[in-house]
């Protein structure tokens, strides 16, 4: 055991002979909140899906909680919020969470569901089918799904997408609470201000490689924005092909 929650070494991922991630190495410790920034097609989603065990690396090594991330016990410690909500549109908010609660074999699932629905502001919509939810409401319910089993590692892929100001505030509160409770968070976003506000570390991923990593403290959003644009808009710095 090394004490790192995430250890990636020369991680590579290729889709149909197109390299999407190339030699990505990083170490993320317990309690860190890490924001990953990068242009579209930089490999952010692929990196997060590798961390979530939804994809297999084409090369390199990945260890989560000091172990190879293949077993059910590791998956139980992960919470993933992706581009898709992973919710069944014809089930209600409560039915969706009940199903995932059973899948994670939660004890006191009903109390946990009540608490999490209140936390994301959807208590009054609990009996409503997800199909008629707005994009933002579905994103909030998806956040509830990701948090339901109280995971130690939260992986959020562009979590601010579709959220209104209240939803963004809810998410920032969730992240602040996670930080207080010593949970590890890795998130990707295009919003420098929101991402940096809660982060203890930041990466810039570009053309499948980490081209910049913060040391010590994360810079203010404006300073970071200048740095980001100078690093990612240099001549010939077009992104890799998007994911298939």
């Amino acid at each position, binding site marked *: 055991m090394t004490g790192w929650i995430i250890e990636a070494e020369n991680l590579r991922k290729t889709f149909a002979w197109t390299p999407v991630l190339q030699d990505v190495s990083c170490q993320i410790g317990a309690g860190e909140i890490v924001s990953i920034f990068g242009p579209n097609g930089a490999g952010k989603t692929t990196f997060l899906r590798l961390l979530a065990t939804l*994809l297999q690396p084409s090369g390199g090594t990945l260890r989560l909680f000091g172990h190879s991330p293949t077993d059910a016990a590791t998956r139980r410690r992960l919470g993933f919020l992706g581009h898709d909500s992973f919710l069944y549109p014809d089930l209600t908010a409560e039915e969706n969470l009940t199903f995932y609660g059973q899948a994670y074999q939660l004890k006191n699932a009903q109390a946990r569901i009540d608490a999490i629905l209140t936390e994301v502001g959807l208590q009054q919509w609990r009996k409503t089918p997800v199909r008629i939810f707005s994009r933002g409401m579905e994103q909030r319910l998806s956040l509830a799904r990701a948090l339901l089993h109280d995971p130690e590692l939260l992986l959020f892929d562009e979590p601010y997408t579709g959220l209104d100001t209240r939803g963004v505030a809810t998410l920032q509160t969730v992240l602040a609470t996670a930080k207080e409770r010593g949970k590890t968070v890795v998130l990707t976003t295009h919003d420098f201000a929101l991402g940096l506000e809660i982060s203890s570390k930041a990466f810039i991923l570009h053309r499948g490689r980490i081209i910049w990593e913060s040391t010590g403290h994360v810079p203010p959003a404006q300073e970071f924005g200048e740095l980001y644009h100078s690093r990612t808009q240099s001549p010939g710095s077009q992104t890799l092909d998007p994911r298939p």
Partner: protein
Amino acid sequence: MWALLWKDVLLELRTKERLSSLFVLALLIILVFVFALGPEQARRPEIGAGVLWVTLLFAGMLSLQRGFLIEQERGCLFGLLLTPIDAGTLFIAKFLGNVLFLTIVEAIVTPITLLLLGSSWSPLLLLLAAVELLGIIGFSALGTLFAAIAVRTRAREVLLPVMLLPLLVPLLMASVKVTSALLAGEAWPEAWLRVLLAFDVIFVVTGWLIFGQVMQE
């Protein structure tokens, strides 16, 4: 496993998409055969067996695709893979769901088919239910395995039958032979019944064992 199965049942109770489309397809196929065949031809046991299994085959294909399409919408399949649910358990749940829905369809469609084809009544026809269940089990086991592969491809509607049908040949031959014997009022041919049983055991066990590999990217 029961939570997964109950979720599929609940979704069907809510939408009624799967069963209604299976019924409509099955009845259409039967009606086409009834109109195409003369009364003499329709009463022949081998024709009745053929009609029953062609109906089940097409309804089954549709059922398999629907079963995984509900997991594909909004990326729910990834949601399942993220949970600590064992891949073998996931296979058994999807397999049982398909067996359940096809059994419901066959329980209604078979008497209608026999009635429309003018098959004569025999107590041996009660054994038909057991043969159909054995056929549905084998079909669902192999089909669940291939539907899980096909659903993640763009050509899923084409790919599933292309992959599945050649491997179903032993099951279909055995099912038709046993059904034909029962419709003719004869004892069921044991050799074909063994083929049916062996097919079921082999593919239920294989599916349970290798589903984890199939579900990987």
